[in-house]
């Protein structure tokens, strides 16, 4: 058989296959959406027409793919996803920083100002930004414009995010257990994934959008009985390099299940109550997820 050809690099790609939230297509006041860079430089974002909505761009990328698009070949085999993004996640670091430095009420347009990423100020144009600012900050009495970061509010807000995420994970039957995940194993979608697994998994997902520090605080907020440092300490880097597939991004969410107190706490936290409530739906048969009566999704 003929010798295999070496792959040449695909340097001048100029087309992309994208799955985008349909709202992206809505034009507003003759404005167009923009792909922009913001404070998290590893991610590309999109601001919808008129900056009313923020989107995040992710890519499905695997080696050895190309597209047929109509009567053409597109060598680049990525599939881009443009999905809605909560602008608060990106406003949050500015609020925290300002809170640490100033410690006083600040006009939010002064806080979210970034010479390095000038598009950042456009975050405040998003419809949701100002209307949901109270989730992460306190407003000065008598003033709509002055705000101060509140960790308490932020943690409550993030807790709701975690709860919503758990509902979605269950609805999509996404396996959250810690079992070995590899392409050679068949994924088993069991109902027995326990609630700590869901909580840890959802917490890990939310942690993708917040600082490590806040992520740790959130875990403590969700599971306050985890007091000792040993339990919340991330496992050593060594573990990541071992051949055991330790899931990335969960290092600080993983704790030794042996150390983990499975005894029910005397008093349930708000999160645990919600979790217990939510979890009931997980015990129902798969079919119940599709029946409107028992639909687990909260509106």
């Amino acid at each position, binding site marked *: *058989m*003929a*010798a*295999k*050809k*070496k*792959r*040449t690099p695909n340097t001048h790609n100029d087309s*992309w296959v994208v799955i985008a939230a349909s709202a992206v297509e809505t034009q507003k006041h003759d404005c167009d959406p923009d*792909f922009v*860079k913001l*404070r*998290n*430089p*590893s*991610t*590309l974002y999109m601001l919808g027409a008129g900056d009313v909505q923020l989107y*995040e*761009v*992710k*890519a*499905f*990328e*695997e*080696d*050895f793919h190309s597209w047929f698009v109509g009567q053409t*070949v597109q060598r680049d085999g*990525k599939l*881009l*996803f443009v999905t809605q993004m909560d602008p608060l996640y990106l406003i949050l670091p500015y609020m925290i920083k300002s809170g640490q430095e100033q410690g006083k009420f600040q006009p939010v347009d002064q806080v979210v100002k970034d010479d390095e990423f000038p598009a950042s100020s456009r975050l405040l144009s998003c419809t949701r930004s100002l209307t949901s600012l109270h989730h992460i900050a306190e407003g000065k009495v008598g003033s709509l414009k002055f705000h101060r970061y509140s960790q308490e509010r932020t943690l409550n807000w993030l807790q709701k995010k975690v709860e919503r995420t758990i509902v979605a994970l269950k609805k999509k039957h*996404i396996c959250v257990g810690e079992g070995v*995940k590899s392409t050679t194993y068949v994924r088993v979608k069991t109902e027995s994934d326990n609630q700590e697994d869901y909580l840890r*998994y959802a917490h*890990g*997902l939310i*942690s*993708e959008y917040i*600082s*490590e520090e806040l992520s740790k605080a959130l875990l403590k907020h969700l599971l306050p009985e985890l007091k000792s440092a040993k339990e919340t300490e991330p496992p050593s*880097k060594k573990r*990541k*390099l071992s051949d055991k597939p330790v*899931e*990335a*991004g*969960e*290092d600080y969410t993983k704790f030794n299940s042996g150390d983990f107190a499975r005894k029910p706490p005397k008093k349930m936290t708000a999160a645990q109550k919600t979790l217990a409530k939510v979890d009931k739906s997980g015990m129902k048969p798969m079919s119940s997820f599709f029946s409107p009566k028992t639909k687990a999704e909260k509106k």
Partner: protein
Amino acid sequence: MDLKQFEADNSGSCRLASRIPDVCRTEDCCLGVDEAGRGPVLGPMVYGICFCPVSKKEELKDLKVADSKTLNEAERENLFQKLDEAQSYVGWALQILSPNMISTSMLQRTKYNLNALSHDTAICLIQYALDSGVQLKEVYVDTVGPAEKYEKKLSQLFPGIQVTVRPKADSLFPVVSAASICAKVARDHVVKGWNFAEDLGEIDTDYGSGYPNDPKTKEWLLKYLDPVFGYPQFVRFSWSTAQTLMDSKAAPVHWDDDEEDGEKAAQQQNNRSMLSYFSASAEGDRAQPTHRFFSERRLKSLKSL
């Protein structure tokens, strides 16, 4: 010969067979196996069996089916006609392996070579005769690969049957020659009337013998080379003739099981994942490895378009 069944889908494998003569179910029979179109880069490979009662061997000889290699196309047609007329005591069956089936088998992840494919097809046809109630006692086979080894393999598979595997068996045993004629006639018909599944309009059917060294075949292969798809399914992609032409004139295509590419990709993947653990972003954020939700779905953040 009715080829409608194959022509309805010429991308797979198809069996055609005569009626089983009653006498073959009651009397001891001999059976010959031969193939047509093993070498060509175009068109199907056809496997044929022919069988008749041992007592009718002489009558088969009288049909002058011997030495099929020396016959031209018209003579073969004529002899197939005679075999068909002798249907009271002669039966036949064919397995047509489409060029697409040959290509996809030979180029499979776990390679399925042409010898293995040939053996399996021959075995299937003998089994078909047995399953149809033919009282097989003697089987004669034109060899593929070393004759001795093949003979042993067939003898073990079909205990109680006298198996003879020989090179050039078609010139030695009339029943093999008869099988060869059936197979060749079928291949001729299929090639001549090839129904291109591709939507390519009028196609020049002057493709010569289909053997790679035939200038007409070469010319045809040059004319019908597509820079993306290579060839219509009429061509055996697994033949080096086709591969070489595509390597020089068509867009390179890389698969995850390409030896060189695959290895390199695995290496790159390793390097990448190691790097992603340690590379902190420019802002001095924590080195954030991706949550397994994303890594399991091959999803990552996109830095720029």
